[in-house]
């Protein structure tokens, strides 16, 4: 059969091209095969947008500067039509953008490449800490002193004192003294500022700074407030004001020392800053180059690594979808697991990345179970198909909102991410499950439901491997190998594992 051979030839061709490209890039050009954290260099991008009012405009934006633990290797500004100046202030650097006239939404970019310096002993002597004026007076001074006394009584040394103070600041019932000092609903900035003030009152040098944590986790790529406290032995230490977590200065990019907004606008309103962050693989390549430098640069220009950071993040996830689909092919055509919808489990697996496996399975089952109860009741109302589907969709969204609110009340963080479930997919799952329930009984519906969750969990586990994400992003040509394997499985005509059980009775004698 000629078509059959065509498939094999095509698969062989794709496989060869994929492997060849991969080997060329990995061994000739020295692209890293495994994610390597040690030589990590970070690309950080701040996207600043605001509304211009149609007159002269000036935007002053705080930007990071090199420290003894973090070197700025490169920085760039994208701001078409704007004049640009950078200004060095006492503790901070500022970029000043200005334009004669601007109207509508304006978007400016600041990009910086930083490299952590992890030398055992810092080459530059750390700057010495000085106590700054605390600024309390009157009733506030009294309140601050009693808070300090309380915290001191509960601590053994300077570090436990800092941690105790942070704990107290984040207590939902902080007591009257702290309420007086920080008000009813204090922001993170207010808390950090107050903590620094109280520590200075105790004659411990402390200050507040704002910045982002250098970690590959999208949710953490946002402005955080850190309390910097000076220790006589070890120098300045950073504490997360929300969690008390301690962090090394090389894992943390300071954007501004002190309180106050990162951007000051004249002639514009509604400023917004969005940060994104990625490990800069391109630079990590620099260690082991054996091929010609020119080829490598050309190759990078035509690779995903040349895309803007936020787009790169999208492709990191998108490139995992084929992997999930491949897992599904194996589960459905080789093993014979019944699922609802062909690729539904892959989409569910994608949302598991946010909710984590256990929480995801729990939330998914909860929403589907509740939706199913509503759907089975609707069966009795005798609604036409499309309105009924729409009604289930509305109920699903309502349920998701309800679960988010409840889990927020219970302080169950994973519950908030229920909103990331693809609701249309959930609705169709509920619809199909209820039809199977009606026609083949609950056992059939549960069997397929469990099959779907099982496949989603498996797809998640495979897609969540750091190595897989790295490999597919750095070597997208691996998709050709995956495609070749998929084509071959498309012509697989052997038994499914589940069929062995089904047809077993046929092998028994008469």
């Amino acid at each position, binding site marked *: 059969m000629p078509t059959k051979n065509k498939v094999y030839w095509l698969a062989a061709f794709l496989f060869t091209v994929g492997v060849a490209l991969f080997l060329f890039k990995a061994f000739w050009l020295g692209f890293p095969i495994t994610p390597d954290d040690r030589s990590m260099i970070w690309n950080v991008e701040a996207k600043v947008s605001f509304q211009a009012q149609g007159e002269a405009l000036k935007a002053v934006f705080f930007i990071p500067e090199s420290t003894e633990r973090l070197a700025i290797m490169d920085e760039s500004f994208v701001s078409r039509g704007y004049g640009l100046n950078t200004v060095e202030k006492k503790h901070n650097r500022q970029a000043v953008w200005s334009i004669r006239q601007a109207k509508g939404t304006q978007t400016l970019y600041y990009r910086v490449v930083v490299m952590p310096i992890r030398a055992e002993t810092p080459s530059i002597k750390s700057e010495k800490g000085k106590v700054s004026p605390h600024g309390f007076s009157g009733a506030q001074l009294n309140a601050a002193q009693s808070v300090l006394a309380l915290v001191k009584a509960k601590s053994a040394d300077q570090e436990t004192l800092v941690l105790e103070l942070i704990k107290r600041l984040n207590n939902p019932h902080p007591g009257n003294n702290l309420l007086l000092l920080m008000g009813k609903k204090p922001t993170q900035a207010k808390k950090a500022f107050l903590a620094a003030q109280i520590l200075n009152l105790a004659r411990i040098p402390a200050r507040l700074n704002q910045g982002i944590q250098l970690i590959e986790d999208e949710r953490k790529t946002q402005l955080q407030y850190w309390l910097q406290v000076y220790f006589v032995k070890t120098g300045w230490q950073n504490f997360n004001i929300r969690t008390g977590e301690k962090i090394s200065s090389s894992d943390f990019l300071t954007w501004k020392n002190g309180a106050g907004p990162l951007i000051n606008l004249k002639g514009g309103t509604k400023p917004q800053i969005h940060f994104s962050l990625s490990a800069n693989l391109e630079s990590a390549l620099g260690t082991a180059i054996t091929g010609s430098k020119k080829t490598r640069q050309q190759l990078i220009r035509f690779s995903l690594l040349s895309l803007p950071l936020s787009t790169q993040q999208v492709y990191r996830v998108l490139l995992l979808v084929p992997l999930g689909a491949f897992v599904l092919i194996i589960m459905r055509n080789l093993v014979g697991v019944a699922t609802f919808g062909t690729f539904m489990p892959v989409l569910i697996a994608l949302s598991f990345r946010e909710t984590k496996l256990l929480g995801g399975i729990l939330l998914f089952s909860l929403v589907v179970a509740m939706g199913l109860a509503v759907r089975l009741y609707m069966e009795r109302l005798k609604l036409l*198909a499309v309105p009924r589907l729409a009604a289930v969709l509305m109920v699903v969204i309502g349920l998701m909102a309800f679960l988010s609110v409840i889990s927020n009340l219970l302080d169950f963080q994973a519950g908030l991410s229920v909103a990331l479930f693809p609701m249309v997919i959930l609705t169709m799952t509920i619809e199909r499950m209820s039809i199977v329930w009606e026609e*083949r009984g609950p056992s059939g519906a549960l069997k397929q439901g469990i099959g779907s969750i099982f496949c989603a969990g498996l797809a998640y586990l495979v897609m969540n491997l750091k190595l897989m994400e790295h490999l597919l992003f750095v070597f997208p040509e691996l998709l050709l190998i995956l495609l070749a394997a998929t084509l071959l499985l*498309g012509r697989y005509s052997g038994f499914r594992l589940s*069929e*062995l059980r*089904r047809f077993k009775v*046929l*092998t028994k004698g008469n």
Partner: protein
Amino acid sequence: MFTLIKALNQKGVLGINRRNAQYTLWHNKRSLYPLVDDKLRTKELALKAGIRVPELYGVLEVSGQVGSMSDLVAEHSDFVIKPAHGSGGEGILVIIGRSKDRFRTASGALLHQEQVQHHVHEALSGLFSLGGQPDKVIIEYRVQVDPVFQGISYQGVPDIRVIVFWGVPVMAMVRLPTSLSGGKANLHQGAIGAGVDLAGGKTLTAVWRNEVVSEHPDTGNSVENVAIPGWSDLLQIAAGASELTGLGYLGVDLVLDKNLGPMVLEMNARPGLNIQIANRAGLLARLQKVENSISTLTGLEQRVEFAQHNFASEL
């Protein structure tokens, strides 16, 4: 596990991957599927070729016509409502009689006119069709159960499924409704499937859900060794009907009417594989036999003869 695979291969059992990769995808042209997926077109096709089908009382195509349903069935006390694109026996409503202004269904329930109309509305909106696209609804003659099946079926009408490969019948079974299947002749819903010896037309072993049974669970009568009358004619009708479609691998569903004899009910381009369990035989072995000799088989009668000679049961 490998010994099991080997045993299944020896028996010539057809798995779902092979059915799709080597039979339905290979021998069934996609463009011909609508001929069998739309029961209305199947009916027209069969009528044109002189093959008997249940008489069509009327067709409803849009919701606005549902009101006129009572005119269509005014002269008939019993009839069947079925979606043209329904699969697996879904959405079929069998009316066996009337009591005042209500309709009596096969399961004995009394339905108001409105309830019947709601069912039609649902079918029109695509609830029972593959992929949920809007559908047409057929109202047709209700087949009267032949006495041979009276004692071994519950409420509904049994049908005879024949797998036909390029005009050669390769395997057959009778599907007997049970109380579990709600009177429907569909294995998924709980009907019994009894294999049929192609040579003589006698039933063999039967499968119910996933077990082998020899008696009907509701009536207690034996479902084995039941001779189906006019078997050779039935096989010829099945083979002839399959030729009309141009599809190579096909399941033809026939019914036996008490008064009118054999009729073609519908056809299926992706027939299920449970028929192998009902017959205790593998499909693949038989299909390969046909592939080897198809070039020598010319006429319809010759093909049926080939089937009856080669595919006699070994049980």
